[in-house]
């Protein structure tokens, strides 16, 4: 009883200053979009069970998709925390990762050596790219999200020329005839498919656990979490939360935004390496074009906003969003045969949640 009262008074204090439309505590603490998606996810899973779909296969798929998308979603956290908003220019980092793949394969490496080398190269490329991208964002304060989206788009277009014209010779990546790299490049040919997924992987109740993939994802989550507890990390949070406050405490906000966006770009580059090794191939040309959006949607579904994001948002959001997409495909195909309903749902959900988050962005002062 007394505990109940405590909660009550706690809420009173909060609602004194923050009056929002929805006053139900659980809705406020978790967030409406997260709850809706979670309910939907449970509904789809139940339907799948009723339709006698193979749950172990479904769950295995969900875990794999969760792990492979995780780091890409994690890339949103530094950008959002620093105040530049979700990193819509994620294709920049992705391209760095892809470039590292192509160079690694061209140099003739295979297997785990290839992956490790790719990660190192991708980090270097992404750090440099992120630096210039951060400089750009500092020059366009107030319009970061729009500028970022088009930075991503135009870079993808520009890189299409590079894929076509770069002097790569590897048989693994070229066309059967003519110049340029192929659209889709298989990683099985260089023995790099699912290497991380299969590390320490095991089956339990017929569910395949991609241990290596999940461990890698959680390790990166931990590193980012630690980073935001360091002096620099906290300064970045303060700069994103209230730039005037940070400036008055002698913080160089532009420098911190730069660091955060370098980190975000590097995570994007590593994220795509993890993603493609799990997938078994990577896609060049317009492949990275739309990849920012599922990542942005993921963190938002987890409960983040355009100005606030935590590691927990990443984990919850990626699980719910990817879980829903994975589970709904076989269910929708069985229920509504011959339609592309699950793809339609993906587009509606993904863009709907981004739209929702953008409407919540406060324009100007409070």
């Amino acid at each position, binding site marked *: 009883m007394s505990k109940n009262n*405590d909660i009550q*008074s*706690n809420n009173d*204090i*909060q609602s*004194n*200053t*923050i009056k929002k439309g929805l006053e139900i505590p659980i809705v406020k603490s978790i967030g409406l979009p997260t709850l809706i998606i979670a309910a939907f996810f449970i509904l789809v899973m139940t339907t799948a069970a009723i339709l006698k779909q193979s749950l172990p296969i479904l769950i295995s798929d969900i875990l794999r998709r969760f792990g492979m998308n995780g780091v890409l979603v994690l890339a949103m956290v530094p950008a959002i925390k620093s105040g530049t908003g979700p990193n819509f220019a994620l294709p920049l980092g992705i391209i760095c990762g892809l470039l590292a793949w192509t160079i690694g394969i061209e140099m003739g490496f295979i297997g785990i050596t290839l992956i490790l080398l790719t990660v190192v190269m991708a980090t270097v490329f992404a750090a440099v790219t992120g630096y210039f991208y951060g400089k750009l964002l500092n020059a366009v304060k107030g319009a970061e999200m729009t500028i970022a989206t088009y930075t991503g788009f135009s870079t993808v277009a520009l890189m299409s020329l590079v894929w076509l014209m770069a002097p790569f010779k590897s048989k693994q990546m070229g066309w059967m005839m003519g110049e340029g790299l192929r659209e889709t490049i298989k990683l099985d040919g260089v023995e790099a498919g699912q290497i991380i997924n299969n590390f320490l992987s095991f089956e339990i109740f017929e569910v395949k656990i991609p241990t290596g993939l999940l461990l890698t994802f959680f390790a990166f989550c931990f590193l980012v979490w*630690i980073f935001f*507890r*360091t*002096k620099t990390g*906290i*300064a970045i*949070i*303060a700069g994103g*939360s*209230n730039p*005037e*406050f940070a*400036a*008055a*405490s*002698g*913080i160089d906000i532009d420098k911190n935004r730069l660091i955060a966006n370098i980190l975000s770009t590097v995570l994007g580059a590593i994220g795509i390496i993890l993603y493609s090794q799990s997938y078994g191939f990577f896609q060049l040309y317009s492949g990275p074009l739309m990849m920012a959006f599922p990542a942005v949607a993921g963190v938002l579904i987890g409960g983040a906003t355009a100005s*606030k994001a935590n590691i927990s948002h990443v984990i919850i959001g990626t699980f719910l969003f990817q879980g829903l997409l994975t589970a709904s495909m076989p269910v929708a195909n069985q229920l509504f045969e011959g339609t592309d309903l699950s793809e339609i749902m993906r587009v509606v959900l993904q863009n709907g949640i981004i739209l929702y988050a953008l409407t919540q962005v406060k324009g100007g002062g*409070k």
Partner: protein
Amino acid sequence: MSDNLLSIKNISKEFYGNRVLKDINMEIKKGEIHALIGENGAGKSTLMNILFGMPMIHETGGYQGSIELEGKEVLFASPHEAMAHGIGMVHQEFMLIPGFTITENIKINRELTNPNLVSKIFGRQYEGLDMKKMNSDARKALDIMSMGIEEYTQVAGLPVGHMQFIEIAREIDKTGIKLLVFDEPTAVLTESETQNLLAAIEKLAAQGIGIIFISHRLEEIMQVSHRVTILRDGEHVVTKDTKDTNVYEIAELMVGRKVSLDRTNSTSRRISDETVLSIKNLEVKMPGEEVKGFNLEVKKGEIIGIGGLAGQGKIGVANGIMGIFPARGQVIFESSPLELNNPRGAIAAGLSFLSEDRKGVGLLLDESIELNTVFTSMQIHKEFLHNIGFVRVMDSRKIRNHTNKMIKDLDIRCTSSLQHAGSLSGGNQQKVCMARALTQKPKLLLVSEPTRGIDIGAKKLILDLLKKLNEEQGMTIVMTSSELAELRSICDRIVIVCDGKVEGILSPDASNAEFGLMMSGTRADSQLGGAE
């Protein structure tokens, strides 16, 4: 009372239970220049908002009392209605469209038009402009104020003085204007422009227009007004004929109040002769609070107050020293020069600042009390961190212990040290700011408007705390405040800032009149000599 143009009778107004106006009575005759004066927050603007039927008044529950215009009671639901009844206002900020000519600005939304073929079909909106007539109307209005400038000149690029006149021209061009309110019209004008304006106001009054003249420049009031009404803390102090009074008396009446906070001086205080902070020729570009050459020497261990009216630059001083707004000049702290425009340097040198803009600069509203408390110390003094390998990570336990101690010491009312600062009350937010400042262990504390927006109980706590810090730790405090009573209750000396410069330094026991005169930038000696 038929010669009364406007009668304001027993007007009272409450904002959320806070009484800001109490039984105000005021009468303005035809052709009278009636000065309305009072400190910031005395209720002048609220009274004018009521007169103009501003929406904010109705939204907050209306007002008590009545307003009579030419003997008939009126109740304006909107500024439009007030204007339709012949009440005009000349704003402090210019509401002019730079790309338009003077005529167009004067006639905007009241254009004179000629019907044409299109307008006969599509209605009045499509009638052609009668530029000739409009220009001649504008000319007439400009001539009333002896303004030689051509009416077809573009407004963009005109000197501010001219813009002010165009605003007035627009008001007097309205047919049937009976009453004009001037809200600090001379604040942005040069001396000669001011004289022109005052002459124009007298001319307008001579034509039978009633004038309400709001200003804190007492000389101007003495020069042009017929009567003065003084408001103080929402109360009507007195209405007097200007010829029966003098600046000294007005100043005293404007400031005077029963100082409620009593002053107790502890014996243990030591103010040394050593100068700890010396400010020479400080200029700060803070919009609305510009500092234009400020000089001050602060002794070690004293509490020095900076007072003055709003917009005179008192707020700019601390913001300039702390590097929050661009500053120029020389600041010497503990006999070594302080680099300006460098907040990090100022904090590292041992200065700490409680901003007047608590929610803007002072707090991370979406973060915990803990982070708010330790942030600056962590960033500048590298405290509350511990090493894990080669990275420095925040020391949660140390932060929590320290914050809990602060919560206890300063009596911050919160559910836990993790509560977000934004969900605290104003007084508790201020205490969190104070906790952050104290965590930095400053040698000198700059506080700006420490009690703004907090209730009377919390006010006393904050002031007592400042006093305690000064007495027990010998901390030097520079306190900027709009509330004179508050400055007088704890400061050793009070610097009055006027027009970005030090107008004078007074002891807290100086008379109300001395404070009033100084705040309005009136030299006591010269004016008194003239008045007697």
